[in-house]
């Protein structure tokens, strides 16, 4: 096509003689880069030079950044983190399924399904309104306290249920907002083809809605990865609890720093990825 040769022509010209605007923009860019560099260097300098000058720095360093304690506890922390990963791995799909079911409950339009809709509303209101740790305590100790035999009273089962209850409420709201974001003309098009409401939801609305809310749900699941640690309140020795044990054995907070590093190693890439997806989606919309 002529289009490509045209573009090529433009590229060649700009390679040899930049336009006035390009010169101007390049100048602005150099200036911003310089300012960014200077300000970054000064902040880093302040952090690494000024903070250690503080009178209590040595004590803080010994209590929080203790190399000996770090090396002694880090492998144990990594091992304990496997439990977090496992709890996350079995909770996440359950949360996704339950969240979707609740979102569909809230979207039920038939009058016969009104109780379902009411249930969906009550569910999301209640479980979004409660602190996770409270739900974990109440369900994790409360339900087994009713006299369930082992292994049905396991804190893993009921702690997972607590996580599923709370997080599926959030996921349900996110999915519902995704459903609402699908333009009604899509439903109209499906209806005009004779598709049932059910098929319209399943084949037309949901696939688009869920795709739209992937980044928002990613953020929820990053939060879940952190909240898995709350299960330690009812017994399981995951990384946060293991760090607490080490802290008390060594009378030193360094294991918490180790645990924080392990969390960050996982959540930072996940967060960046979620942001990337979000940006991509925003670009696609405009």
């Amino acid at each position, binding site marked *: 096509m002529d289009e490509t040769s045209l573009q090529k022509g433009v590229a060649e010209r700009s390679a040899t003689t930049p336009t006035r605007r390009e010169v101007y923009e390049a100048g602005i860019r150099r200036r911003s880069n310089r300012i960014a560099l200077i300000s970054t260097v000064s902040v880093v300098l302040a952090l690494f030079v000024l903070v250690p000058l503080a009178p209590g720095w040595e004590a803080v360093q010994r209590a929080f950044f203790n190399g000996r304690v770090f090396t002694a506890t880090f492998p144990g922390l990594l091992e304990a983190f496997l439990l977090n990963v496992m709890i996350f791995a079995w909770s996440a799909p359950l949360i996704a399924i339950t969240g979707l079911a609740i979102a569909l409950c809230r979207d039920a339009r038939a009058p016969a399904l009104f109780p379902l809709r009411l249930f969906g509303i009550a569910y999301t209101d209640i479980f979004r309104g409660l602190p996770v740790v409270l739900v974990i305590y109440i369900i994790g100790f409360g339900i087994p306290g009713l006299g369930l035999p082992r292994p049905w009273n396991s804190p893993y089962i009921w702690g997972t249920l607590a996580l599923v209850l709370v997080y599926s409420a959030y996921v349900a709201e996110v999915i519902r907002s995704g459903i609402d974001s699908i333009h009604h*003309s*899509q439903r*109209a*098009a*499906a*209806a*005009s*083809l*004779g*598709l*049932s409401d059910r*098929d319209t939801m399943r*084949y*037309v609305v949901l*696939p*688009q809605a869920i*795709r739209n809310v992937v980044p928002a749900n990613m953020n929820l699941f990053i939060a879940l990865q952190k909240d898995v640690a709350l299960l330690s309140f009812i017994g399981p020795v995951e990384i946060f609890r293991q760090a607490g044990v080490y802290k008390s054995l060594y009378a030193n907070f360094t294991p918490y720093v180790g645990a924080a590093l392990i969390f960050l190693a996982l959540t930072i890439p996940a967060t960046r990825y979620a942001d990337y997806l979000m940006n991509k989606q925003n670009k696609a919309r405009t």
Partner: protein
Amino acid sequence: MTAKLSLRGVRKRFDDHEVCKGIDLDIAEGEMVCLIGASGSGKSTLLRCMNLLEPIDDGSIWLDGTDISEPGLDPQPVRQQIGIVFQSYNLFPHMTAAENVMLAPRRVRGLSREDLRPRVTQLFTRFGLGERMDHYPDQLSGGQQQRVAIIRALAMEPQIMLFDEITSALDPELVGEVLDVLRDLRKQGMTMVLATHEMGFARELADKVCFLDAGRILEQGPPETLFSNPSEPRTKAFLARVL
């Protein structure tokens, strides 16, 4: 002559605004009817009422002598017989063109992809989209998308096709390819109702043109009569503006 589709005293209101104020219209088998009129005159609403996307408030709609506007009637079988194509295409963006076309036949008529593929391929080829079947809507031009939307409606093998200003959202150079599709359908003898601003096209192909004004059919007749010799002053005024 018995009408394929008949409207009798059709009224439709949205909140306080009455959009259709008693419409009577007969569409014969194989006939092509064009609805013209200013924006907001009720053309689109009337089309949406015809395939029951909007329930009517009063009056009745008859398809092959059956009242399909009976409140509480399941609209789905009717919609299978009356296809509609929208101004903004409304393709499903997460499916390829072919999947868009096959979804309803698969789900509503229980046909398999394998059953459908030859017929769908034939439709795409017929409308010049043989190469685009597996493209997603955002990889197609507006004209191509609108043609896919027409194929999607045709795939349900409807007896009547409704077209709601299907060229209004298109760049001028893409209008022709869509109108060609309509010409093709006309040749095949499809019963069609169009809401349109393409007066030349209406004049060329329509059996009957209806001028809608403020929710009423003010005047109707064969295109030569209506365009050349309108009897109502409002029709004259409208035509003077658009021609």
